[in-house]
């Protein structure tokens, strides 16, 4: 079982123990930095290449553009993605003629990720509260059963879950994509329970003396105190849900429920005969990835500092 330490509620602000005194400058240090710079270039270059290609003219790419800058600068890729170009214009530019319902996919992605995140985090918090701070018979046994759920790999439940979603008549709906992870994940329950266990009894008892019910304590005390871990979990859940591909691929068949990841795959295979519309594809890729990159820009510090104890997935 993975061990996860239970940091204080103010986890995200701290950066751990003080760094050791800097080692002496030397060749090793220079080599280390050279390696890290290489890692950074490899990490970031594909992002630049997406942007550079998205802003190029697709036909010019095929004509052999070796430039590190956009080849024959053009907004065409983005215009195809957002459906601004007419079918003929798109075909002339090397794209596919069919319109793509980009805004629909974006809306579906937002709906799914929001439903999954809001539901999963809230319901898992409720369960975690019951496991951490309420007293009831068989509490530990029930929790052990929940924890055992961590062992079941996602792949195994996907097929039976698809059958279930089909029986519920939810195939090709946004709800069908969101539902299986909307109510809980064992990890979310486990993660939040760790924090709730760490909250001191005294605060809680003071509230009870003043006549607050346990329900009120959960909403007015436990949830606000745990704002940091809850928002960390929410961000990570949102990113994971946004990037999900396999499950939405199984469940959605039409634009009605198609999310961005699945739509990207469809967009790619729309032109199997000729060369792909690389400019359009990279523009679509950029637009699909951008919301999470922006989310990261805003919450970078919190996300980076929380990876250490959010590790079990």
């Amino acid at each position: 079982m993975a061990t996860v330490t239970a940091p204080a509620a103010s986890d995200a602000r701290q950066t751990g123990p003080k760094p050791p005194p800097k080692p002496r400058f030397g060749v090793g240090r220079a080599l280390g930095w050279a390696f890290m710079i290489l890692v950074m270039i490899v990490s970031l270059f594909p992002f630049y290449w997406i942007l550079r290609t998205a802003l190029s003219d697709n036909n010019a790419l095929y004509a052999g553009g070796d430039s590190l800058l956009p080849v024959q600068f053009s907004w065409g890729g983005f215009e195809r993605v957002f459906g601004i170009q007419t079918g003929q214009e798109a075909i002339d530019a090397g794209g596919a003629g069919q319109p793509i319902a980009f805004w629909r996919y974006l809306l579906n992605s937002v709906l799914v990720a929001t439903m999954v995140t809001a539901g999963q985090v809230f319901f898992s918090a409720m369960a975690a509260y019951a496991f951490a701070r309420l007293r009831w018979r068989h509490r530990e046994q029930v929790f052990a059963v929940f924890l055992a759920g961590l062992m079941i790999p996602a792949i195994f439940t996907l097929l039976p879950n698809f059958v279930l979603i089909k029986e519920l008549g939810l195939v090709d709906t946004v709800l069908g994509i969101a539902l299986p992870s909307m109510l809980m994940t064992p990890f979310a329950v486990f993660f939040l329970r760790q924090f709730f266990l760490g909250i001191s009894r005294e605060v809680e008892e003071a509230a009870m003396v003043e006549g607050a019910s346990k329900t009120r304590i959960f909403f007015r005390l436990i949830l606000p105190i745990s704002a940091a871990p809850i928002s960390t979990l929410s961000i990570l859940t949102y990113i994971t849900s946004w990037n999900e591909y396999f499950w939405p691929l199984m469940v959605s068949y039409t634009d009605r429920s198609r999310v961005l990841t699945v739509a990207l795959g469809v967009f790619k295979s729309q032109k199997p005969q000729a060369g792909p519309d690389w400019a359009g594809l990279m523009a679509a890729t950029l637009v699909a990835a951008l919301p999470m990159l922006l989310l990261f820009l805003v919450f970078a510090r919190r996300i980076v500092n929380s990876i250490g104890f959010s590790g079990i997935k």
Partner: protein
Amino acid sequence: MATPTRPVTPGPAKGARDDTRLALLFILPALIGFLVFLLWPTLRGIYLSFTKFNLLTPARWTGLDNYVRMAQDPVFWNALGVTVYYVVVNIAVQTALALVIAVLMQRLTRRTWLRGMVLTPYLVSNVVAALVFLWILDYQLGIGNKVLELAGVGRIAFLSDSAWVIPTIALINVWRHVGYTALLIFAGLQTIPATLYEAGRMDGASEPRMFRSITLPLLRPVMAVVLIISVVGSFQVFDTVAIATRGGPVDSSRVLQYYIYEAAFNRFQFGYASAMSVALLVVLMIITFVQYRLTRAGTSDLAAGG
């Protein structure tokens, strides 16, 4: 509300008010989620593996037929072999790289921006990662191949040469995940007391020496946990294959999960697909169990706590 305020005793004492009803209310949504979308599908998946089922007509019990067929199916064994090959390449490269990155992050600078940059690829989906590298590694137009040509290496058909395809898919996933893994290891490094390094330096130990004698031994439990997570995760490779190669060329990148998907959704053999899922589950359980035992074996020399 009349709730007891005296010190907590484990389990409700006789006659004492406990929170059973409220607790039930609080775990109810999660419990429904657990029973309906985790426990029931698990049991059902095992049941379906003993049936012939195509979604349209009710499942028909066929005993061990699916398992017999699986044992005789060369494509299944090939898929298992391809998956293991992928996992080995992926884990070996990813763990080694992540370890180096984590140690460098600790020894050079602990600036958050550095960790943030390494994590950036993790924020995009596997689909995006696959598409970008499909483009960068394109045989004719890809910048990667142009650089290789300039360097005198010559072009490589990364995703259409059966010898290259699995290492390439592994490297694409390393690109996306190595930062995340590095941060997990980095978190483990933070638990090693800085005083140990100070003492080491006092004794005149070099950086490589300190890495061998301090970092590695104390990091072993963390590494074991990281390995379990990433091995279990990478056995479930699907997205990259589905986008980049669809199992090709021939069967050379037909990983187990992609084969399961094809059996279920292209040929509607849900029973057979379920049986292969059970096989994958068994493999994962064995690996987890073995690694867990190794973790336990490693806890004895853990000074700082995992």
